[in-house]
């Protein structure tokens, strides 16, 4: 295995949770709901996936538990912000506080246990392709799902009627309601989808990235995912590109250090964040294009008139 290939493999593992959480949040935000609780839902997914895997011995049950945990937890956010129209920003932040607390409590007994790693699945034939094969076709299930989700969400949002409805709600919930689209109902589904994806991202952390449970193991990745959605200007493909860009810069700064270049490590560690801002500046100079993609009613409360 060549060094470039090895580095790329590391990048894939680092980028997958970011892509997953971001693609879920993208759908939530496209429906006009801003859920800042990604970090909380992710950590819930991570702990439940780990606990379920330890209990059953099967990481696949763990994946389901992670997805379910993230989704259930997002329901709490949905109830508050959609049914009770509580402020979305504050509720999302409170969800993160709650998630970090509950996950720590649930996982207390599991600290230090060795986990079960999700095995890679080689796709016959394709995995034999030199270079690309091991990189793209000899990965674990969660990686395949992440790619499928990006393709699927892109198709769903822009090619289906349901996707059109979601975007309509996100752009103007008033008119969407007037057209007879169930705004609240659709938004609930979008929030649930976001929660499920964040939960799956958490499962990736505790089953693939580092098969173990420690408190706060998401270590801010939920925030990065949130930033990626903005970075992507709410386009699924750009989430993929952004996630991998962020992962690539994070990994290359480690390699730069191992080579002993002598640049202060703090500057190298700050590089992924700076790079994200710089790239966003470069792609967002076209004001009209950005406005077209930004869900106009993002974060605004909606109560149907009677």
């Amino acid at each position, binding site marked *: 295995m060549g060094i470039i290939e090895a580095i790329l493999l590391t990048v894939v593992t680092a980028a997958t949770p970011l892509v997953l959480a971001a693609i879920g949040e993208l759908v939530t935000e496209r429906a006009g709901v801003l859920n800042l609780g990604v970090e909380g839902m992710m950590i819930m997914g991570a702990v439940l996936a780990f606990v379920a895997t330890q209990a059953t011995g099967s990481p696949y049950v763990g994946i389901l538990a992670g997805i379910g945990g993230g989704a259930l937890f997002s329901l*709490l956010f949905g109830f*508050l912000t959609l*049914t*009770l*129209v*509580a*402020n979305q*920003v*504050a*509720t999302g*932040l*409170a*969800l993160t*506080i*709650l*998630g*970090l*607390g*509950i996950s*720590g*409590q649930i996982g*207390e007994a599991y600290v230090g246990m060795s986990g079960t790693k999700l095995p890679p699945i080689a796709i016959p034939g394709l995995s034999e392709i030199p270079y690309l094969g091991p990189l793209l076709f000899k990965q674990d299930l969660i990686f395949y799902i992440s790619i499928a989700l990006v393709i699927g969400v892109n198709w769903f949002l822009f090619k289906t009627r349901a996707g059109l409805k979601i975007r309509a709600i996100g752009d103007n919930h008033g008119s969407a309601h007037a057209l007879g689209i169930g705004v609240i109902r659709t938004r609930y589904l979008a929030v649930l989808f976001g929660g499920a994806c964040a939960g799956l991202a958490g499962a990736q952390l505790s089953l693939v990235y580092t098969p173990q449970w420690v408190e706060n193991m998401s270590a801010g990745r939920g*925030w990065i995912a*949130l*930033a990626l959605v*903005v*970075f992507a*200007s709410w386009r699924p493909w750009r989430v993929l590109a952004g996630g991998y860009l962020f992962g690539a810069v994070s990994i290359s700064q480690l390699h730069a250090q191992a080579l002993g270049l002598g640049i*202060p490590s*703090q*500057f190298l*560690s*700050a590089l992924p*964040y*700076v790079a*994200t*801002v710089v790239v*966003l*500046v470069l792609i*967002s*100079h*076209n*004001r009209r294009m*950005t406005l077209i993609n930004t869900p106009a009613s993002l974060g605004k409360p909606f*109560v149907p008139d*009677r």
Partner: protein
Amino acid sequence: MRIELEKRPQASVFYAVLSPFIALVLTVIAGGIMFWLLGKDPVSALYSFFVEPLLDVWSLHEIAIKAAPLILIGVGLSICYRSNNWNIGAEGQFIMGAIAGSIVPVVFHEWHSPLVLPLMLIFGMIGGALYAAIPAFLKANLNTNEILSSLMLVYVAQFFLDWIVRGPWRSPEGYNFPVTRNFAPEAILPEILDSGRTNLGFVFAIVAAVLIWFMMRYTLKGFEITVLGQSERAGRFAGFSSRRMIWFSMLLSGALAGLAGISEVSGNINKLQPIISPGYGFTAIIVAFLGRLNPLGIIAAGLFLALTYVGGEAVQLTLTVSDKVTRVFQGLLLFFVLSCDTLILYKIRLVFPGRTAAVAQDGLQGGAE
């Protein structure tokens, strides 16, 4: 069963006052159940959480210390959020303010003068404002989303602080540990009362909140902020510039966060070190919304959140529960407060399918209007 909301013709003053208390009652019930399930005495848990910290002069001071940065940052953020500028990087502005304000006591440590402290505070505000100017410039001129840029700059500020205290500013007397030299006495914010260690930072917080409340309520600028926040188009017709508002709100909130940063470092830590904030910049976002973006409300919210931190410690000790439990309790509390605020603007009805008549759950309705 379904929950329906009906918008009140106007915000209910009655519930605006009462909703925090309803939330408190609900939290007490839910929290009591949680402690009971954990096998702890719910009464003494709740007592330690909410009452014990209020009985001791010492812990009242501690609440004020903890609340000061939250209030100071929170009121600045409220201007941003009211005008639709989503600055979520106050943590970074806090750090940069602390660094800029520390230039005087660290680099010019041999200069002793009563001017040191005022200069530090001014530098702190400039530092925070300049750091907030980056996302402001990017948004106003290059159309870059400020949520992303301000958040990313938080991480950059943290690494910068880490580098500066390990590198150029490392104390020569600190055995090469990552701290700057301790500030000289004239660089330390004085305490305001003899009875405890609350310092001038708390006064700054209250003064800033009252000034901004006055501005929002009685000045044209306040009107401009509200109008632009509600509708950029309407603002433009009134001759207000949303671009100028980006600069105004970001610089103001940056300056206040910077002031909070230098006050914290000068008044409480007395030097720079790799970590100077347990996430004040993020917690202040909750405080801003908990206070309903009203500066006076933010004072109350800041003090209240500070109480939950101080009380949380008391619970950890008296009941030997882990800090996770107090975190969960804090989360529950926030949820109840946020959901009870619904009552201010809406009537809540439970609708049962199959029955034509909706059951009014707004029991106190009569008293409300």
